[in-house]
């Protein structure tokens, strides 16, 4: 899996979590919370959807890695690859 493909997966999840937001111009290197309205429950949604849709577990200590699209891709791509995706 490429990092761009990983970002697309995260963006698809965010689109469902924040359906009122325009996510077409999110900057990948900027914290998601600085670009759109996301609260702690929304981040738990991202964690839950990664678990439900892709079988990926994100331990609480690693939530910090979900801050931006770039950090999501850096953190999640190896996890997808470990699952053979």
């Amino acid at each position, binding site marked *: 899996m490429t990092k761009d493909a990983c970002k697309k997966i995260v963006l698809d999840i965010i689109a469902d979590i*924040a*359906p009122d937001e325009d996510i077409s111009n999110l900057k990948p290197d900027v914290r998601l919370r600085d670009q759109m309205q996301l609260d702690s*429950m929304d981040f*738990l*949604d991202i964690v*839950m959807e990664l*678990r439900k849709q892709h079988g990926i577990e994100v331990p609480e200590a690693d939530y910090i890695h979900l801050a931006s699209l770039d950090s999501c891709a850096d953190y999640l791509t190896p996890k997808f690859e470990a699952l053979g995706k």
Partner: protein
Amino acid sequence: MSFQQTRIVITGVGLTAPNGNSLPEFRQNLLDGVAGVEPFDVRYMGRLIAGVCHFDTLRYQTKKGLRVGTRAGSISIYCAHEALKDSGLSFDSVPKDRVGIYIGCTEHGNVETENEIYAISKFNYDTKYWSHYHNPRTVANNPAGEISLALGITGPAYTIGAACAAGNMGLIHAAQMLRLHEVDVAFCGGVSESIHTFGIFAGFKSQGALATHEDPKKASRPFDKGRNGIVVSEGGCIYTLERLDDALARGAKIYGEIGGYCVNSDASDYVLPNPGRQAECVRKALTNAKLTAADIHIVNTHATATPMGDIQECEAIRAVFGAGCPDTSINNTKSYIGHCMGAAGALELAGNLPSFGDLIVHPTINVDDLDPLCAIDGLVLNKPKKVAKVEAILNNSFGMLGINSTLIVKRFTA
């Protein structure tokens, strides 16, 4: 001025019913005989019938708000906004800590719990897939709390659990809080999201009390000899209530005045009504309102179209209004919209309030063959009735575990 002398008036109405999403639309359909029951798919049970609301969920909520909140919360928010708009209150200048929210519910949380159990069934019941929204969605105060979040109200906001007597209870409690000067404005009434839980359908079916009919719009038929049970419905109706002096000071439109009320309990059975206690509830409400039975011009019945329950309520009404009440008309709203549970009392009152203005009593529809045991004097059947005067409306709502509520609303006269 004593507690009881403080006059409380209705200044705004917001509602969604299976046959209307505003009071004018709802009322017109009640006069035109338009029912709102339709086919409805229920998890595990297949296609049944239900009263479904079709309000614009995005009028006052974002898509995210809808995703995070509950159906009951969404109904509440819609109705509260509509009531606020209807009231004409300049809400920006109202201190938000002086506003109360009192919402009657039959039950709350079953929908979300059933949904979550169904969701984790797809993951071999592993609870790590259980939603983190489950607790805020299922707390009993959710439908009231969602209004406080939506309108920025910081006063008391809670629900009143009173089975199907709850809609009346919202108004009664609000009147009490206004009289105690705990708040200056109250949003009150009842809501129900019940159709989104299979449990209520399955429960009524197991009781032998779930209505069936080849034509959904004919399925809810209180007082008809062929009635065979309840049509489960969702809905909501929220009022703004104020003390009369405050309402007059701002030149508010006044729908009616809280005349009196009573809440009592049967203390006799989990589900079977008790006509004696129901009659007592009505009589105590009349005493509270300083009225006699003959002073009531419309009685809105609770009757849900169960074979036994309708007979027992008619027995109670006959005991109070049986003689000497030639000007009392009796109707039923569930024949149009089914049983909106916690919203029932509030919605059914709303449907009759315009009678103060147009002097028309909406009928009970779907009565093709009146059950002789339900043939009480004053029943208005199948077509509207023009009457000479409407000075007081008495609204009955009763619920399981034997809770009874009677609310009387009077025409407002200065």
